[in-house]
C-alpha cells in the first residue's frame, strides 16, 4: 500500500528520513517494500499486515503507529464542521435491512457544492498514492479514505428517487438484479451481494463500488455522503464472486473500526466545503443500533514473564501500552487492566498484548535462552531412513535423482491407457499440462529422457515421490520409487542392467529373496519384455521396456527401461529380512557347469531344475555366462553356472558332490534336453 512521506510528516513533524523510518518500521511494524522519490515527496510502499488494516491503513493511522514505535509526538488533526440550518434527517432517511450486514451507516447531506477540478496539492497526494483524480468531490472522498482508512462514497442527491425526502436502503440484492458501476461495467448480482439502493434502483455495491446512476457529475449540486461499516465476510464474498477488488473492499474485508464513520464523515464534509463550498446540513443521519462496547483486557506481568522467558520492567511495559494509546484502567502490583483502543480490532487476548510489548521492546533485544527439560532422543522415522538409504544406493549405482511435478495432462493419461475419470482431477488447474494428479511416477520420468538426449547419450534417473489415486470414498496417496534407463544406442536394451541395479539395491539393503516373474498383460510393454518384481510372494511393482508407441512419444523412439515399486512394501520387506546368517563352518566346493539348451528355455527354468535336483547340498547356482550366436548351432544358447555345494555338518567329499552333480545333469538332460558341454 502506497503512502506519501510528506503526508505522514504532517502528523509527525519530527519524522526521520525515509530510509531511517523504514528501518524501524520493518523491525517493529510493517515491511517497507520500496522507497521511491516523487518530485518533492517520497512514495513508501508499506505492506500493512492483514490484521492491522483497522488501525494502520490510513496516513493518520500509520503515523500513530510510527509515533508509538519511535516514541515521537503525534499531531492530531482538529475537525470542525460548520453546519447550516436545516436538518439532514429532513432530506434523507436511511433504512438498514439487517444490522449484521451493516452495523453502522452514517450519512450527511450537502447543498450547493460546486464540482470542479481538484487543486494541485490534492491531485499530487492522490497521485503519489496511486489514485486517479476525478473531481474535487470524489477526490476529497478518496483523500479522506487515504487519511483515515474509512472508505467513503458520495451520491448525487438529486438523482436519488423520491421528491422531498429521499430514502437510502441497505439491502441484499435480488437475484438477477443488475447494476452499472462508475466505470461503465455491468454486474449481475445475487442475494450474497449487499446493495445501497433507493426505492427504485441500486445505487452502489455496498463497500465495493459506486453505481453510475447516482455518480457525481459536473452538474451535481447536492450530495449525500456515505460513511458506513459493513460485514467483512459479506464484502469478501461479494468481492470474490464479482471478481472486483477495490480500495474500499480491501479495507472492509479486513475490518474497519465502526467508530470511524463519524469522524471520517465530518472530516470529508469539512474538506468538501473547503474545496467546493456549499452548506453542510445539520446533523448526521446515523444508524448504529448496536454500539460496539469498549474492550478491556488484563495483562499479568508474571504470566508475561513465563511466556516471554524474560522479565521486562513493569514501568517499561506500561510505557509501551501508553505509547500505543491503550488506556491504563487500573494498575496493580502484578497486572494492568487495559482499555483497548477502538481502532485496534486485532487485539483480542493476552497473546496479542504480549506481541505488542515484545515488538515495541524489539524482538531482537530479547535474549536467546535454550530450552531446558527432559532430554528425549528423537524418534526414528522409518520411511525417511530407508528412503535415504535407497536414494544413496541408487546414486552410487550411477542413477541421478530427479524431482518431477506431481501433475500430468489428460493427453498423458490417454497415452498410457489410463482412464482420466479414474484419476484425481484439479478443480482449478494452472494449465492443461497440470490438470491431473499423477497416478504413477513413470509418465514424467520418461519425459526427462527426451529432454536430456540433447546433451547425454544415456539417461539413468530415479524419483521417490507420491502418487495419487481415487479411492472407494476418499482419495489416497502412496510413496513410490521409480527409475529409468534410456539410451540413444538402439541396439542395446538395458533391461538386465536395470534388473541388476535392483538386485544390487536389495542386496545392499540386506534383502535376498527378490525375484522376477512374468508381468500379466500390460499395455505399456510388448509381450515378454516386462516383469513383476517380488519380495518372496509379495508383489512390489514392475520393471519393463516400454513399447514403441510410448517410446516414440516420450523418448524420441529410443529404448527405455523403467521400474516402479511401492516404497512402503519395499520397506516392509527389507525390515523383516535383515538378519545375521551364521558364517559356514565347513568349506564349500565349486563346480562349473556349462550346458547347451534351446533358445526359448529360460534361466529361471534351468535354475528351478537345478535347485530341486539337489535340495540339501546346493548352496547357490550362479549364472556367470550366457551366449547365443555364431559358433553355436542355431536355435541354441549356452549357459554356464557356478554350482556351490556345502554342508552344515561336515566337509563334503568329491564323491558326494559328484553324485549331486550327476542328479542335476540327468534332470537337465531329461527335462530340458540340455546338452552338457
Amino acid at each position, binding site marked *: 500500500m502506497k503512502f506519501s512521506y510528506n503526508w505522514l510528516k504532517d502528523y509527525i513533524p519530527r519524522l526521520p528520513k525515509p530510509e531511517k523510518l523504514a528501518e524501524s518500521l520493518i523491525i517493529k511494524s510493517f515491511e517497507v517494500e520500496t522507497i521511491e522519490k516523487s518530485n518533492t515527496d517520497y512514495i513508501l510502499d508499506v505492506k500493512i499486515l492483514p490484521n492491522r488494516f483497522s488501525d494502520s491503513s490510513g496516513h493518520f493511522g500509520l503515523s500513530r503507529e510510527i509515533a508509538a514505535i519511535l516514541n515521537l509526538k503525534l499531531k492530531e488533526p482538529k475537525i470542525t464542521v460548520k453546519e447550516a440550518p436545516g436538518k439532514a434527517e429532513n432530506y434523507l432517511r436511511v433504512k438498514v435491512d439487517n444490522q449484521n450486514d451493516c452495523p453502522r451507516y452514517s450519512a450527511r447531506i450537502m447543498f450547493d457544492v460546486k464540482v470542479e477540478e481538484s487543486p494541485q496539492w490534492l491531485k499530487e497526494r492522490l497521485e503519489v498514492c496511486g489514485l486517479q483524480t476525478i473531481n474535487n468531490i470524489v477526490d476529497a472522498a478518496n483523500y479522506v479514505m487515504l487519511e483515515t482508512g474509512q472508505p467513503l462514497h458520495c451520491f448525487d442527491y438529486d438523482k436519488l428517487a423520491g421528491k422531498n425526502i429521499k430514502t437510502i436502503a441497505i439491502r441484499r440484492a435480488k437475484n438477477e438484479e443488475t447494476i452499472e458501476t462508475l466505470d461503465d461495467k455491468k454486474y449481475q448480482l445475487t442475494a450474497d451481494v449487499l446493495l445501497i439502493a433507493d426505492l427504485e434502483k441500486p445505487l452502489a455495491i455496498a463497500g465495493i463500488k459506486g453505481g453510475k446512476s447516482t455518480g457525481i457529475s459536473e452538474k451535481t449540486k447536492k450530495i449525500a455522503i456515505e460513511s458506513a461499516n459493513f460485514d467483512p465476510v459479506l464484502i469478501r464474498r461479494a468481492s470474490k464472486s464479482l471478481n472486483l477488488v477495490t480500495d474500499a473492499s480491501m479495507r472492509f474485508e479486513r475490518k474497519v473500526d465502526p467508530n470511524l464513520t463519524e469522524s471520517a464523515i465530518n472530516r470529508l464534509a469539512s474538506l468538501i466545503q473547503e474545496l467546493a463550498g456549499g452548506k453542510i446540513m445539520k446533523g448526521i443521519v446515523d444508524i448504529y443500533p448496536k454500539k460496539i462496547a469498549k474492550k478491556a483486557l488484563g495483562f499479568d506481568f508474571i504470566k508475561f514473564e513465563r511466556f516471554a522467558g524474560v522479565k521486562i520492567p513493569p514501568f517499561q511495559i506500561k510505557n509501551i501500552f501508553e505509547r500505543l494509546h491503550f488506556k491504563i484502567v487500573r494498575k496493580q502490583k502484578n497486572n494492568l487492566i487495559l482499555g483497548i483502543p477502538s481502532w485496534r480490532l486485532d487485539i483480542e487476548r493476552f497473546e496479542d498484548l504480549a506481541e505488542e510489548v515484545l515488538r515495541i521492546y524489539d524482538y531482537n533485544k530479547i535474549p536467546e535462552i535454550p530450552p531446558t527439560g527432559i532430554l528425549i532422543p528423537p524418534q526414528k522415522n522409518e520411511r525417511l531412513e530407508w528412503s535415504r538409504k535407497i536414494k544413496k544406493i541408487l546414486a552410487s549405482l550411477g542413477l541421478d535423482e530427479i*524431482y518431477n511435478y506431481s*501433475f500430468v495432462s489428460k493427453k498423458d493419461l490417454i497415452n498410457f491407457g489410463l482412464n482420466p475419470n479414474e484419476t484425481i482431477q*484439479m478443480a482449478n488447474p*494452472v494449465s492443461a499440462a497440470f490438470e491431473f494428479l499423477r497416478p504413477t511416477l513413470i509418465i514424467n520420468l520418461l519425459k*526427462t529422457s527426451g529432454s*536430456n538426449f540433447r546433451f547425454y547419450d544415456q*539417461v539413468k534417473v530415479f524419483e521417490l515421490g507420491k502418487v495419487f489415486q481415487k479411492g472407494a470414498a476418499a482419495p489416497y496417496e502412496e510413496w513410490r520409487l521409480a527409475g529409468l534407463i534410456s539410451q540413444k544406442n538402439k541396439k542395446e536394451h538395458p533391461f538386465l542392467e536395470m534388473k541388476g541395479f535392483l538386485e544390487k539395491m536389495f542386496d545392499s539393503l540386506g534383502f535376498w529373496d527378490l525375484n522376477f516373474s512374468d508381468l500379466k498383460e500390460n499395455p505399456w510393454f510388448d509381450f515378454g519384455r516386462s516383469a513383476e518384481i517380488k519380495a518372496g510372494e509379495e508383489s512390489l511393482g514392475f520393471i519393463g521396456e516400454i513399447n514403441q508407441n510410448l517410446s516414440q512419444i516420450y523418448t524420441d523412439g529410443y529404448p527405455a527401461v523403467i521400474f516402479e515399486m511401492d516404497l512402503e512394501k519395499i520397506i516392509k520387506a527389507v525390515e523383516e529380512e535383515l538378519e545375521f546368517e551364521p558364517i559356514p563352518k565347513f568349506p564349500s566346493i565349486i563346480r562349473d557347469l556349462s550346458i547347451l539348451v534351446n533358445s526359448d528355455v529360460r534361466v529361471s527354468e534351468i535354475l528351478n531344475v537345478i535347485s530341486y535336483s539337489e535340495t540339501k547340498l546346493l548352496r547357490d547356482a550362479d549364472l556367470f555366462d550366457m551366449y547365443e550366436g555364431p559358433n553355436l548351432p542355431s536355435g541354441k544358447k549356452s549357459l554356464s553356472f557356478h554350482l556351490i555345494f556345502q554342508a552344515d555338518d561336515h566337509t563334503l567329499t568329491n564323491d558326494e558332490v559328484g553324485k549331486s552333480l550327476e542328479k542335476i545333469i540327468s534332470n537337465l538332460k531329461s527335462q530340458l534336453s540340455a546338452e552338457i558341454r
Partner: protein
Amino acid sequence: MNLEEIKKTAPIEIQNASDLNELENIRIKYLGRRGSLTEILKSLKNLALNQKKKIGPKANFLRESLEKLIQEKKQLLNQVNKFPPIDITAPGKKKEIGHLHPISKVEEEIEDIFASLGFSVAEGPEIEDEFHNFDALNMPADHPARDMWDTLWLKTENQKSKIKNQKLLLRTHTSPIQIHYMETHQPPIRIIAPGKAFRYEASDASHEIQFYQLEALMVDKNITFANFKSVVSAFLKRLFGDKKISVRFRLDYFPFVEPGVEVAVSCPRCSNRGCALCKYSGWLEIAGAGMVHPKVFEAVGYNPKDWQGFAFGFGLDRIAMIKYNIPDIRLFHSGDLRFIKQF
C-alpha cells in the same frame, strides 16, 4: 659337445632366449654343474699338459664370455619385463556415479541438525482437507488471510474428505502436519515436518506451483519466546556457519501464531553489505514463525492454558537456492541432468 660347437651354438641360443626362464635353462645347459662347458673344464685335469695348455685358456675364455653374454641378456630381459612408467599427470578414469537432488541434500542436512537438537521427523498427506490446512490453523472460511495461500483445489466427484463436508485441496504449506501430529500426540512435542506443498501460482524464477517446506514445532509447559529465539538461531547458525551470519527477528503476521515473527539472516554472500541475492537489503528472509496461537491448541483438543510453544517454517527450495547459488526455482523440477549432475 666340443668347444667349437659350444662356441657356435651357445651365443645364438642366449641371443634368442625370450625370457629369464629360458636363459636360465641355457645357462644350466652349458654352465650348470653338469653343463657341457663345465664338463669340458672338469675334464681338463685328465688331459696331458700340452693339451691342457692348448684347450684350458680357450675353455676358460669361452666360459667368461658366455657368462658375460648371459649377464647382458639377463639385464636386457629384465629391462623388457619391467612395467613402463605411468603418466601420473594424465586424468583419472571417469567413473560415473549418480547424484542426489539438491533439495534431498539440503533436507538431509537440516534434518540432521534438528535431530541433534532432539527433534523427530513427522510427515503428513499432500492431499488435505480445509480443516487441517486452514480452519485448525485459525483461518476459518472467509478469513482474509486465506488469500496469502492461493490454493489448488481438487475436483471431488465421488471423493470425500474424512471430515464431513470439507473441500479437498493440495496442502498449501506443511503446517497441517503439525495439526495431524498434535491430534494424535500429547506434549512434550519436538518435531520437524518436511514435505512438498502446492500453490496456485504463475511460475517464474522465484515462484513455483510446487515447492518444499520444513516446519518445526516445539510445545511443552514452559516453552518461551526466548527459547524460540535460541532454537531458531542455533539452527540457522549451524546451517549457514556460525561466524558468517547474524539473525534478525521482526514482526510479521500469520494467523496460527501470536506473536508473529519473520526470521531473516544476514546475507551470507555479501555479509550484509547488499548484493543481488539479498536484493541489496543485506538480509534474506528465511522463516515465518511465532508462538503457537491458542486457537490452534483448541483446534487439536489441547487446553491452551496448559501449553505453550513455538513453530517456524521455511522453504527448502529457498535454502538450497541460497546455499548453492541457484538463480531459478524452476530448475528443481526441470529434470535437467546438467543441473542435477552438479550436486
